[in-house]
């Protein structure tokens, strides 16, 4: 089992109110699965992705990633985990505007301590893979939306992660470009990558092989019966 959570909850304090974003969620995801976490806004799907992506820790409950209890890790260990095991693709691309496509894609390798020569080699091949070999020296603002998202996908894949999270990956794209990006994810899934889409858009969710539907901080349907 790649991902296994036991009854995780997440509470935020906003002023005097406590917001219960997650109220006990148990999920199991196998390696190589292509999954969509869906639900209306406020359902807790983004919080779920942040916890599964090790950007945050649950208020209570257990989370095992590749058998490791993530809730007991330190900041340094979590950052290492995010660096090596997890890739993120965001709705707003989140590329660094001042540096080239190549530099953006190789950032995770830099934090992993990979040598410049090795970085260049890996970046080159991953950019070819997402069809941007000819754009590697451009700045992000010289690219179209679809191209920017491809750069983000390349960056998410560069460290060969166990799981790739995509948070509304087509939200800022027109439908034609959105389809192209989804086609890219389909290909990646076929190659054996574990992909978790987070979306409120049913057409996007339908690309996935399994859907986890969330509502009011709880999982409505989609988990295996344990």
């Amino acid at each position: 089992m790649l991902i296994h959570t036991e009854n995780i909850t997440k509470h935020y304090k906003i002023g005097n109110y406590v917001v219960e974003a997650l109220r006990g969620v148990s999920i199991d995801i196998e390696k190589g699965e292509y999954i969509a976490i869906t639900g209306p806004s406020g359902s807790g799907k983004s919080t779920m992705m942040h916890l599964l992506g090790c950007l945050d820790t649950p208020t209570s409950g257990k989370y095992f990633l590749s058998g490791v209890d993530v809730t007991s890790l330190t900041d340094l260990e979590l950052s290492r985990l995010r660096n090596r095991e997890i890739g993120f693709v965001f709705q707003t691309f989140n590329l660094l505007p001042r540096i080239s496509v190549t530099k953006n894609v190789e950032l995770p390798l830099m934090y992993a301590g990979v040598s410049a020569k090795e970085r260049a080699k890996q970046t080159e091949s991953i950019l070819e893979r997402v069809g941007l070999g000819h754009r590697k020296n451009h700045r992000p603002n010289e690219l179209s939306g679809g191209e920017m998202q491809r750069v983000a996908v390349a960056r998410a894949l560069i460290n060969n992660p166990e799981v790739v999270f995509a948070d509304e990956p087509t939200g800022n794209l027109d439908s034609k470009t959105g389809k192209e990006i989804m086609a890219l994810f389909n290909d990646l899934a076929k190659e054996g990558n574990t992909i978790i889409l987070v979306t409120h858009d049913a057409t996007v969710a339908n690309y996935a092989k399994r859907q986890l539907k969330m509502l009011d901080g709880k999982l409505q349907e989609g988990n295996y019966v344990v």
Partner: protein
Amino acid sequence: MSFKDLIKSSLNILKTNRLRSFLTILGNVIGVMTIIAILALIQGMNNSVEQQIQSLGSNTIFVQRFSWGAGRMDFSEIAKRKELTLDDAWAIARLPAVDKVAPQKSSEIASLNYMGKSAKEVEVVGSTPDLQYTTNYTIDAGRFINQEDYNRKQSVCVIGGYVVDNLFTTEDPVGKYLNVRGKRMLIVGVLGRKGSFLGNSQDQLIIIPLTTYEKIFPKPTGMQAVFRGLSIQVLPKSSKQLEQAIDQIRELMRRRHGLSYDKPDDFGINTQESLRQIYKNITNIAFIVMIGVAAISLLVGGIGIMNIMLVSVSERTKEIGLRKAIGASHRNILYQFLFEAVALSIIGGLLGTGFGLGIAKLVSIISPLKAAAPVWTVILGIGFSAAVGIFFGIYPANRAAQLNPIDALRYE
């Protein structure tokens, strides 16, 4: 992230924000520039004062009623001390390590007049012929006072360059007469010029025999006696015997004054070294004040850097969130921002050092002040600015590192 990557990416970010980076470091540039310029000029001044001190007559010992020093002096105690006498001087002259002795007294007169011209505030020095050796006088024309002048209390004088410049612009002064406190004095010689010492002209004087001096000047009393009483200039046999001569004089004077072993000296034995000490005391104060001023400008520069770094952290909140999401640790982010701050301030330090040395050079070209810039001043300037960068960069960098990645990613 490797050290090299860290430096490269920090510099890259500063380069893309050129104008802002430049304005940010301006405070640092000015601070370091001030420090370096001041240090270079003070160092230059030290060198030239050292030369002047050496020009005084390098081994001369001055025996007086008080010791030189910039510190506190108890004048009421000094006024009670025994006066130095001619017998003291002749006794010192017999000491084995002593070569020449010149007892002297001096007074300032308001003006010296000659044919309608006047020279203001001239020092009249009464002494013996050996003063020429103890003070290293040279003779431009005529002769110095001699033993016969002294023995016969002759009304003769030797005049300094300042007097020549004011009274004898066209004539040869030797053989002319000057009126000094109602006494006609024959000018027998002109002294070679010594220039000024710490801003005081050393040529603004006339020298007459001590015996003649005592005839025309009344015996000073009270406080006047402390400064206008007899002092004794002593030249040791050689520079190697300077310390020995000082010891012998001290022992002799204590015996002559009947001091028991537990009493402090009631006289002063002063040398060039005492002057050097005074100069050091004065410049140390000036130095501390100036460094204080420069430190304030560095502080202001540092606050400027901190300010911009805080702006930069909040502007790049989203970038920080992303970097954390893709694997940057707390420490990676801390170092990244700290490095930017340190890089900014070191660049500021380098520019400031360059400008500071330039200013010092300029000052030494257009003024008599000479600048000298030892390597340590440059190291100090750059070291200081790096320290400022670390000190003022820590807080913003830590703030960046503490950001929660989710909040940072959500930030618009």
